[in-house]
């Protein structure tokens, strides 16, 4: 643990979001510091995906502020939020099924100068050698695990300063889920700030520095990953401990 004060990457304050009368988020506060891995735990419908969509400006909050690197993102179109350095891997991975692996990565590096793209592609194919083998395949023909690798690789070639992952373990066999988290661990070591949303608390708390528990659109608990892992409610609800 460093003692130097770290700058906040993401600051969410008093965030309220509604969809057609349903109040998905009801006053959420959250702060992620540079270089740390933060996890938001919560069941289905707790508002996790809504939170991430609001950060990327895909949905418009009713109230509250979101700051990225100190900048209020209120009036930015979503592509400008991405341009600040946010790479968001959406729920269900969001690979372009009709595009090949190569083309998906090309889109990931959309804002990276062409001269640097090749080196970045080489880096991610080293992390996920499987993608090299599937280079010319349409993403829609990849297995779930391969699609997850592609989704993460596509986010990495954007050279993000903040990597946002929406349930990376969803729909994956336990072995693949563990592999995905090993990759996240590696990414974390390169110094990228990571914000992760998960239902699989056991895996998520292993890589996280800090954790928030979201339930019914409000933050129920928060603290360091160790503190949150010790909470009785978390042990019962997410870790399968009676």
């Amino acid at each position: 643990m460093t003692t130097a004060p770290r700058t906040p990457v993401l600051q969410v304050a008093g965030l309220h979001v509604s969809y057609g009368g349903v109040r998905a988020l009801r006053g959420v506060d959250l702060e992620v510091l540079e270089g740390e891995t933060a996890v938001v735990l919560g069941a289905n419908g707790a508002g996790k995906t809504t939170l991430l969509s609001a950060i990327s400006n895909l949905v418009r909050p009713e109230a509250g502020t979101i700051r990225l690197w100190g900048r209020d993102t209120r009036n930015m179109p979503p592509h400008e939020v991405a341009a600040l350095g946010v790479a968001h891997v959406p729920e269900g991975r969001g690979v372009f099924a009709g595009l090949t692996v190569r083309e998906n990565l090309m889109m990931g590096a959309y804002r990276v100068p062409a001269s640097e793209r090749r080196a970045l592609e080489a880096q991610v194919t080293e992390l996920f050698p499987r993608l090299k083998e599937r280079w010319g395949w349409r993403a829609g023909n990849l297995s779930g695990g391969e699609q997850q690798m592609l989704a993460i690789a596509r986010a990495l070639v954007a050279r993000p300063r903040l990597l946002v992952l929406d349930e990376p373990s969803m729909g994956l066999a336990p072995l693949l889920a563990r592999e995905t988290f090993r990759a996240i661990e590696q990414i974390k070591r390169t110094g990228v700030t990571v914000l992760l949303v998960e239902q699989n608390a056991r895996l998520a708390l292993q890589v996280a520095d800090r954790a928030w528990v979201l339930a019914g659109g409000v933050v129920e608990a928060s603290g360091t990953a160790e503190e949150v892992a010790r909470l009785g409610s978390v042990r019962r609800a997410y870790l399968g401990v009676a």
Partner: protein
Amino acid sequence: MNGTYLLQQLVNGLAIGSLYALLAVGLSMVYGILRLINFAHGELMMVAAMASATFLAGLRVWPPLLLVGGMLLGGVLGVVVERVAYSRLRQASEVNLLVTSLAVSTFLATGALMLWSGQPRRFERVEVLSRLYEVGGVFVRGADIAILAMAVVSMALLTWLTSRTRLGVAMRAVAEDLRVAYLMGIDPSRPILLAFFLGSMLAGAAGVLWGWKFGQVAPTMGFVPMLKAFVAAVIGGIGSIPGAFLGGIVLGLAEVFFVGLLPATYSGYRDVFVFALLFLMLLVRPTGILGVSLARKA
């Protein structure tokens, strides 16, 4: 009926088919990105043709320059239509877009009628293009070779663009999933404008080439070719650029052979046949020759 006759019909089919193909490629490109059947596409061709006949041809412009002028006019007009009419409907349903494109089409056609009257206008021919070339008893007009070449080149270039360049691939990405495209930092208005510019440019090219082929143009010339191009795009697999090209050629050949091989009394049913072909295609293979299933568009 002999070999030469059949070969001549084949050439005639290719000639008309490549004009459909040229229009269908542009139409399919715009459809590919916005899921919009741009009914104004044929009117863009008409405006480019009429404007060239009126303003440019009298000046005895060097023909390649006239073609480029028509293409630029078509492209710019397409972008203006996108900005003024379609861009405001980004969140609206596909039906709203479709109806709007019908309105734009009517607006352009009626505007042209008011401006130029319904009289066909003479389109200054170019000697090399209006000449008939004979190869082994089969006749080919210069303009038809030019149209086929234009269709092939534009199909090849656009196929390359949409699979190899950043902005071209972004067109397909935006079409498939706008939200995810945003997350990649893609500003969707750029690939959309490029698609409109390029697609409409081909309509402009078709307008000038049409003038050279037939020697006259009229404000009413846009609608029927647009419908044929639409049928061609559907036959080929709408959204696919090589498919649109292929669909245009297939449609042209089918049309010519229908007229050429059946007794002359049926030749009036040419357009009926075209749309019967469309019905048949939609029944047998709704995704078209080269089309991919639309189911993947979640």
